[in-house]
């Protein structure tokens, strides 16, 4: 197993701006010519090639594409968890050199710390800031209220449903007040009903906090429900096929003809990228 130091150097310079109180500041993200080549035993594999797009302050952008188009690799590169072979990610103009608390990261499989209670999970990142204990507790309460889990604060993750676990993961990511929320198929492992509920809740959280969101999904309807813009990727190698603006008023209804048109348009683009 690799140690923390095996990764790219920690983005200590980038954490400075996230240290304040609940500023609810949003950030812009720019991907500049991102390429990723895996050199294993055999032929080198080009997973990503010249991926470039940007997300402006407070914008909600979804990333969709056929399986194997490198969505998750791109997600890890943006999060600073994987090094790109070429190009760079700029967060508010600063290159991302490693994981930073300026980004709140939410994974599909929740990855809650099973030995910590709900409140302790949410407070994990806060313990690594210079906030006082009282401030931290206050922030944890605030986050639990935001995701409607105040009642479960003392419970261990094992006793929670998938939807509740993902709410805890979102609260944990938001607790340190990042400028950007980065989500990798966060609702992919829950049932359809829970997913729609979580989508509505996420839009509420987005509206109330004004964070910038970059959201990876394979569910086109989900992308059209959530996003201001949808970045459609193509595979072999993973690249940007097209960026689609979603001009549908919120709250969006699936029955709306405009909704359906966007879904078909994105599906078409994904089909063409196979």
């Amino acid at each position: 197993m690799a140690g923390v130091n095996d990764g790219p150097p920690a983005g200590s310079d980038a954490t400075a701006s996230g240290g304040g109180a609940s500023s609810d500041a949003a950030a812009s993200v720019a991907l500049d010519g991102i390429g990723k080549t895996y050199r294993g035993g055999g032929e080198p594999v080009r997973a990503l090639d010249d991926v470039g797009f940007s997300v402006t302050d407070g914008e909600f952008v979804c990333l969709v594409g056929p399986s194997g188009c490198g969505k998750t690799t791109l997600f890890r590169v943006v999060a600073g968890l994987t090094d790109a072979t070429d190009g760079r990610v700029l967060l508010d103009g600063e290159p991302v050199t490693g994981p930073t608390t300026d980004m709140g990261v939410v994974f599909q499989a929740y990855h809650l710390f099973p030995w910590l209670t709900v409140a302790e999970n949410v407070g994990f990142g806060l313990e690594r800031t210079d906030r006082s204990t009282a401030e931290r507790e206050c922030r944890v309460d605030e986050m639990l209220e935001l995701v409607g889990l105040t009642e479960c604060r003392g419970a261990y993750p094992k006793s929670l449903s998938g939807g509740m676990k993902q709410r805890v993961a979102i609260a944990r990511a938001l607790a340190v007040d990042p400028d950007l929320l980065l989500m990798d198929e966060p609702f992919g492992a829950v049932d359809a009903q829970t997913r729609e509920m979580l989508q509505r809740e996420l839009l509420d959280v987005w509206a109330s906090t004004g964070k910038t969101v970059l959201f990876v999904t394979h569910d086109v309807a989900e992308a059209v429900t959530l996003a201001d813009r949808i970045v459609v990727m193509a595979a072999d190698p993973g690249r940007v096929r097209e960026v689609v603006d979603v001009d549908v008023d919120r709250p969006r209804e699936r029955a709306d003809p405009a909704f359906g048109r966007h879904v078909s348009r994105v599906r078409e683009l994904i089909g063409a990228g196979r």
Partner: protein
Amino acid sequence: MATEVGTELDEEPAGVGLGLGLGDTRRLRRGALGAAAFLVVWHVVSLGSPAYVLPSPVAVAGAFANELAAGDMTTALGRSVRHWIPGTVVGTGLGVAAGVAFGWNRTLDDLTAPLVRTLRPVPPLALIGFAIAWFGINDAGAAFIIAVGAFWINFYAAYGAVEGVSEDLLDVGRTLGVRSDLDAVRSIVLPASMPGILTGVRTGLGRCWMLVVASEIFGVPGVGREIIRASNNLRVDRAIAYILVLSLMFLLVDVAFRAVQRRALSWRA
């Protein structure tokens, strides 16, 4: 090597078989029945055997009572505890620490792998010469033998547990501000590997009672020494009485540790 450790860790120590603390009365009743049947068979077989081949359970109980009344048993146990406690504490502590460190740090692991593989198959008993040379025929020498046994069990349990810690949890930690190895080990690796580490500690606690006999083979007084002496004098009843002391100590420690383990891992329930 790995498989051997694997089976050691998978074995449920005897305390579990008795269902203690679980309130499973049916299991307890059946256990009592099995034990009673064993005693009857033992007694019947012993009737046709000389006492130095197989003493009857009644003779063993008598020997146990005599030794206890004379104070010899408590004295011997007191001495053995003075080997068991420091040996177990030092061996467990060093074993867990080394297992976590080598399991976490690739460089340390690479550096020590050949040494570890050379030393691992050496049975603690084979180190008696070193125990005598380094510590003498005393409590420290006996504790050394026990510590060696505890070390390896805990080393491999901790090493494997740390190796199995999810990379994803470490990624999450990094995105939440974990920057140093120390922070990662303290706040993610140790708690995540605690179930595996505690299984190792528990196995080690039991193994150390077995090693009490080996550790006293070169003349340090204690329960193990009494077993060896009684056997040499063909006093099998006394030998069994002292073996029972080890079993009882093992059971006591195991039940107590299980309670600790359950509490420490309550998040898994």
